[in-house]
């Protein structure tokens, strides 16, 4: 974590730091994600979370409740029926919250872009997306890069000066 220390004392374990940086350091280091999958991308997400790829080394840990989650990984095809649910779940998450759109379907409708009468043409039509991960489905490495990009974005945030 690139925390630019303002000052550090040799004794007593005291550091002086901007509160923004400190908050960002803590938040970027623990992007707990909301554990739900919608289609085959979810399999890759599970693989990314499993020991071989181990998303948890970036602090990303699956949570079963939207109340405890910071990041929503939309992994898979979002049908219109599910879109209303995804929107509701997003609204149930506590701020600050982020969305990773994983795979072609969540990004743009994927192979259903033309004849998918039932498919949402991109999850960004219902929730704001922070990081798009391309692929069909993306490999776990791609999801990991998406998570790292999100961490970069979180570190550039100014949570105490946000106008919302």
């Amino acid at each position, binding site marked *: 974590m690139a925390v630019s220390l303002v000052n550090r004392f040799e004794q007593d374990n005291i550091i002086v730091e901007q509160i923004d940086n400190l908050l960002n350091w803590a938040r970027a280091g623990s992007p707990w994600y909301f554990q739900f999958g919608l289609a085959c991308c979810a399999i890759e997400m599970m693989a990314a979370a499993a020991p071989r790829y181990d998303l948890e080394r970036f602090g990303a840990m699956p949570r079963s409740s939207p109340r405890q989650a910071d990041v929503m990984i939309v992994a898979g095809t979002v049908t*219109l029926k599910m879109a*209303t649910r995804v929107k509701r779940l997003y609204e149930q998450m506590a701020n600050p919250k982020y969305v990773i759109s994983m795979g072609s379907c969540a990004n743009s409708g994927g192979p259903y872009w*033309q004849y998918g*009468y*039932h498919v949402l*043409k991109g999850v960004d*039509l*219902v929730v704001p997306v922070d990081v798009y991960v391309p692929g069909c489905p993306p490999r776990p490495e791609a999801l990991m890069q998406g998570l790292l990009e999100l961490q970069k974005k979180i570190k550039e945030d100014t949570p105490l000066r946000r106008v919302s």
Partner: protein
Amino acid sequence: MELAAIQTRVGAVHPDALVPTDEGAAYLSMTPEHWADVAQLLRSDEELRFNVLMCLTGYDRGPGEPLGVAYNLHSMDKLHKLEVRIEVPRDGGKIPSVAQIWRTAEWHEREAYDLFGITFVGHPDLRRILLPEDWEGYPLRKDYKEPDYYRGIPVPKDKRGWE
């Protein structure tokens, strides 16, 4: 039993139920009126004993043509198979439900109702099964037009900038 023998057996009990099919057709075509009785016969007759409904498929032959349902039956006792097809008009087509005869049919009939708009008379719980309950239209019909919006969400792909 072969198809011809099954046809003879059904025709002996319900002569009005059978609809002539094209030569070489590998299925029996039936009228919806007698279907409930015929289905009971297929299930319980000693020679037929079709105790498994493997699949129930709705189909649409195109605008102006009737809608249909295909039943794929199998007998675990006699080890023979049968396909039954029933066709009904596009508007207000009604087929007797066989959910009480083969439990498999309960959800399959809901699916055919959901996607083709075929009504199954006597079904215990005929609701949409896949699509949301407030969906309009029957998407697998060939004259289906996708909606512009669903609950305020635009449905067709926005192709501005790349077409």
